[in-house]
């Protein structure tokens, strides 16, 4: 069954400044949806609003059912913020246990972690932490994964592996991705939105990205 995540009616202000006011976005299981926008355009805020960790006027629906905070309902979404979020004192083993994930499947894809099962998150490098976080959010059981700058801290080889993992997992869940490495995003996504002046625009091609002020002609 295909699940559909829809977002509209978002109105988010900081002080007198309106950050988001005309958002419509749709994401489906089996598809990867990209969200592009300039720095400060409100992409990260929008992902937080969708997950329910920022509260504001909005309508976020999965299969036509409205949810005020998706993150509170297990199995609906997982959210990767743009910063490291796993408590440093936890071991890799414990993180996999909490997310109910199989470590063997992880090391098949990322063999460099074979000796790191019992290590603390604090002892991993920035790129390794990011890989563990990414894997947890991508592979954990849920309908949707929201990925805010997933490719930060990763080498080109690791980005390639993560992209293939996302493509593999998209048969089970829907992905909403935002990143400044727009070639990677446009290369992998099925649908693309550009966020500009607080409004989302559906972009079909590069001309649309130029039209909405994201890319140069």
């Amino acid at each position, binding site marked *: 069954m295909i699940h559909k995540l829809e977002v509209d009616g978002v109105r988010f202000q900081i002080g007198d400044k309106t950050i988001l006011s005309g958002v419509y976005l749709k994401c489906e299981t089996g598809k990867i949806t990209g969200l592009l926008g300039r720095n400060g355009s409100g992409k990260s805020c929008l992902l937080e609003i969708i*997950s329910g*960790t920022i509260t504001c006027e909005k309508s976020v629906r999965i299969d036509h059912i409205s949810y005020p*905070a998706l*993150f*509170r*309902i*297990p199995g609906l979404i*997982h*959210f990767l*913020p743009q*910063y*490291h*979020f*796993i*408590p440093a*004192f*936890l071991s890799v083993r*414990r993180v996999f246990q*909490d*997310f109910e994930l199989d470590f063997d499947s992880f090391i098949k894809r990322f063999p460099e972690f074979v000796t790191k099962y019992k290590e603390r998150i604090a002892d991993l490098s920035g790129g390794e932490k990011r890989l563990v976080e990414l894997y*947890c*959010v991508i592979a*954990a059981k849920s309908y949707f994964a929201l990925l805010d700058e997933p490719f930060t801290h990763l080498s080109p080889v690791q980005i390639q592996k993560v992209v293939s993992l996302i493509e593999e997992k998209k048969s089970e869940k829907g992905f909403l991705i935002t990143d400044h490495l727009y070639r990677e995003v446009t290369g992998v996504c099925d649908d693309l939105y550009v966020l500009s002046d607080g409004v989302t625009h559906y972009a079909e091609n590069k001309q649309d990205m130029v039209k909405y002020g994201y890319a140069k002609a």
Partner: protein
Amino acid sequence: MPLATTIRIIGTFYRGFAAVSLFFTAFCALLFYRNGLHAFTEIFWFKVITTGMIFYFINRNQQKEYKYYQNLGLSKKMLWLTTICFDFTIFIILIILIGKNT
């Protein structure tokens, strides 16, 4: 999510400040042991204020880690309500035990 898993994850959150909180609880118990029941109000407010300070510092310094718990289905409110209830239960039990034995 199974209850045991929820408790384990809340326990992980509590681990982040348990040492400091339990230190203050032990200090309160010591004060109560030395000064008796008439000092209970001051001791209680001392515990409340130190818990407030812990809340402030965790919110300021470890805010990013809330995303870990939120990804596992636990809100900030849930984490704090359960851990503060647990922490104050330990505090009250200690005070009662000391009160009975002095």
